[in-house]
């Protein structure tokens, strides 16, 4: 058997920290029983059962899998038991007796006809009949269904605190604890259902504890002093110019219910929104079986789920090596590490070499090969960074999964959209993605916020030990795009925004028609997927050569939530 599977019980105990192998759980997905373990999420339970597909792309109709964990997943979403809005499959806990349903892949969200007319039939698109149906469903003035219920009114409440921390990762917890110890009333809002962020994906020690244990201890300290300090599943939507944060709060468990709006007025706001992993521009990288290095490591460490038996790792930095070492230790064959850098100089590369992992420098993954008639990956095509013809060294590696990473980038959407600075009480904590920087920047932001509010803050210097990453290599990061820019056909298959099904080929065609700037983004439909384009934003900015306008609101902001905000203001 190949593809996603659960590691055997004989694997090292550090894999599967979130699950309890001794306690099976019966969870239903789409009405069918899904064997899972206590601690699994819907995503990990599906993958552990070898079900890699999460429906089809809205426009091109290609099979899609899970590519990321947490906030960055563009496509693997499902509808929770109570039928409220879709949630990320990684955010739905698999509990005994619970259930969830797949999101119907119905009408395409965008530009079906404008584009079909612009560039003729799209290879692999839905057939014309289906498109016509989607069109009818969207546009025809059919009478409303009699039983259709209206979405409920969004409940909203106002509250206030001294300091609001967005994100309960290492930086956020360090900032919150620092601010709280100085005597401030602190609120922490965390978008996902767990604390620690990426802490459990990194080896090292903080204050002599494993990073995730340290995070849990800090979270305990926060809640111990003030039971209301920490709120999970609370996603910050926007920060208003007067320092009021709008937060979408959901309930826990398989019945989260409709989201409520919290308008939190804070004297200081600390943004510790963490980092997202940039995808690599690879033809076919939207297939089930291609995932980001962080997601592969998270699945292994949290749920003991491996992406395949023979895995190729493509990377432009050290992040891929961390996952390759984990995979090897979990007993998965690492077929090859393709590193776009020419001569990486880092401790992690040396560790990978010490593990005897096969390594190919100045190499790129260019695409995936699938078995005839199925979406299953059977190989990964690769080539050298430079060189033409024979010197390009085109080759196919046999593998059933591809792990790709283009390094981590800070999430800047909230900070950019807020447009406030430290003098106005907005502090940014997440700047660099390694253990020492995360804790240090968090403490500094917490202390600065306390000073801003007139408190003396004691900046604790926790002792942090971990392997730092080598600095980013700009030339290596630019290589995949340059390679795709010159070669022909695979461009169509290289997805820029997986949620909205926008490919590199679309971009090229739109450029040929003279589109640029905001009109180009509108035309392509960037960000029209479920995730609002968050997952592909870094890639899109990179490929377009310009940053998105900072005005794009959070994908969780609905008309009802904005109206609820207006009601709060009017009633005040």
């Amino acid at each position: 058997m190949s593809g996603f599977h659960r590691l055997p019980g004989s694997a090292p105990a550090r894999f599967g920290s979130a699950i309890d192998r001794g306690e099976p759980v019966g969870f239903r997905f789409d009405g069918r029983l899904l064997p899972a373990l206590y601690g699994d999420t819907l995503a990990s339970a599906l993958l552990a059962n070898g079900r890699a597909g999460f429906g089809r792309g809205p426009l091109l109709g290609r099979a899609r899998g899970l590519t990321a964990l947490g906030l960055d997943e563009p496509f693997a979403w499902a509808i929770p038991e109570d039928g409220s809005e879709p949630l990320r499959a990684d955010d739905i806990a698999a509990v005994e007796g619970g259930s969830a349903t797949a999101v119907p892949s119905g009408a395409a969200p965008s530009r079906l006809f404008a584009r079909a007319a612009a560039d003729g039939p799209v290879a692999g698109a839905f057939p014309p009949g289906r498109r016509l149906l989607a069109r009818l469903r969207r546009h025809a003035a059919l009478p409303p269904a009699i039983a259709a219920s209206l979405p409920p009114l969004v409940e909203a409440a106002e509250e206030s605190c001294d300091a609001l921390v967005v994100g309960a990762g290492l930086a956020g917890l360090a900032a919150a604890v620092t601010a709280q110890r100085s005597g401030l009333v602190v609120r922490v809002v965390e978008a996902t259902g767990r604390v620690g962020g990426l802490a459990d994906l990194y080896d090292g020690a903080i204050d002599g504890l494993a990073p995730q244990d340290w995070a849990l201890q800090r979270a305990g300290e926060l809640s111990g002093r003030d039971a209301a300090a920490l709120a999970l599943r609370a996603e910050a939507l926007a920060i208003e110019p007067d320092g009021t944060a709008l937060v979408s709060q959901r309930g826990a468990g398989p019945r989260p219910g409709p989201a409520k709006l919290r308008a939190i007025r804070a004297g200081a706001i600390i943004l510790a929104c963490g980092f997202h992993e940039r995808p690599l521009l690879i033809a076919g990288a939207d297939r089930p079986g291609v995932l980001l290095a962080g997601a592969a490591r998270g699945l292994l460490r949290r749920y003991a789920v491996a992406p395949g038996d023979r895995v190729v790792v493509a990377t432009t930095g050290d992040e891929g090596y961390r996952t390759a070492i984990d995979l090897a230790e979990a007993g998965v064959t690492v077929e090859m590490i393709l590193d776009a850098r020419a001569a990486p100089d880092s401790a992690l590369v040396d560790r990978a070499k010490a593990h005897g992992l096969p390594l190919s420098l100045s190499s790129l993954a260019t695409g995936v090969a699938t078995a005839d008639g199925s979406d299953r990956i059977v190989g990964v095509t690769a080539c050298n960074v430079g060189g033409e013809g024979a010197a390009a060294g085109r080759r196919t590696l046999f593998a059933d999964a591809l792990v790709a990473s283009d390094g981590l980038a800070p999430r800047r959407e909230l900070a950019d959209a807020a447009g406030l600075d430290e003098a106005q009480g907005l502090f940014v904590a997440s700047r660099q993605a390694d253990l020492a920087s995360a804790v240090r920047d968090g403490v500094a932001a917490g202390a600065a916020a306390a000073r801003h509010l007139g408190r003396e803050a004691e900046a604790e210097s926790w002792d942090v030990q971990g392997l730092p990453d080598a600095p980013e290599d700009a030339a290596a990061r630019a290589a995949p795009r340059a390679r795709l820019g010159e070669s022909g056909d695979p461009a169509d298959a290289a997805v820029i925004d997986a949620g909205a099904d926008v490919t590199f080929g679309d971009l090229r065609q739109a450029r040929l028609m003279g589109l640029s700037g905001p009109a180009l983004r509108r035309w392509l439909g960037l960000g029209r997927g479920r995730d609002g384009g968050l997952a592909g934003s870094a890639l899109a900015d990179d490929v377009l050569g310009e940053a998105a306008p900072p005005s794009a609101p959070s994908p969780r902001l609905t008309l009802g939530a904005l109206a609820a905000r207006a009601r709060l203001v009017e009633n005040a």
Partner: protein
Amino acid sequence: MLRALLPARARPAPAFASQESRRPADAYDAIVIGGGVLAAAIARAAALDGRSVALLAPAGICATSPERVWPVIRTSAPDPNRSALQADAPARAAKLARTLPLSPGLDRVGSLTLAGRERDLDALTREAADAQTLGLDVWLDAPQAAAALSPALAGVTPPPALNDPAAVTVYADALALGLAIAAEAAGAAVFAHTPVEALARDDAAVTGVALQGRAIRAGAVVLADDHSAIRLVREGRGRLSLTREERSALTLDSDTAFGPALVQDDLLAAQDGGGAVLLSAADAPERVALRAEALLPRLRAARIRAIENVTSWTGVDGRPQIGAAELPGLWLALGFGRDALSPALAVADHLAAALAGDALSPALAPFAPTRRAALRLLEAAQ
């Protein structure tokens, strides 16, 4: 497979898309300033008349914000003179869409104008009577009929509504781009990202434009972009007698069918050819959301994809200015206000005919910029 069998599209990329810089020629019969639907339509119509035309777009070739947030082409308008001007607008757009190289995603969904505070039932009744005098198929519908027509209004009892079943929605960006490509195919020179620095004048007449330090002569300069026009005319110490309106526009993602475009007072809601629902009103974004939620509770769970501010200009008497300005050589097509798209194609054809020396269409007479002497008195009185 199918793609391999079909010949590659033979259409070359438009010249305005190329990266290499081209220079405008020294003289044209007409220069059109603007990059939206109206400007591209004027350039195309004039080029089809055999004139040598340059389209100078201050930014990219795409619909202007007022055109984009109300992507609806209707037959009737509150002002009977405008109804007369745009009476055949949807049919004209449908005919044009078939000839354009790029589909503008035209969809005949109709439009409903709901009775509100500003435009109450009496005003709508008058508007319906005026439109019927012009021979338009526009009538008042009872609340039940309006509710049955519009899936977006599910869950509310709407007020009576003026039904304009011929109205179409388009993908405004695609329409502008398609018109620009067609204009180029007809012989016009199209330049994107080419802001004009100033109007070139000798004593009493406009003789062309100043661009990148050069003077480019033109028999006629047509200002078809409100923002550029205000800048150029203001710097030439002229006045345009326009009033501005600030609106907030929300772009929503919605999977459910929206149906006819909806208007209530200053609140506009329609689904464009790309599937996005566009809401706008002269209010703060939160207030727009609140008002839209009251009217369209169905959309409560729809995700807001963009929030933007849109400025539109209208003549001080509520009418646009179309035709030759007081200054010889200068032509205006601006001040269309909220409903900018509906009259655009008709205006383009009438203006192109006038540029070719034909008598100005009588439909344009009420909009002549030379009525501005009276307008200034009106302004002073206000």
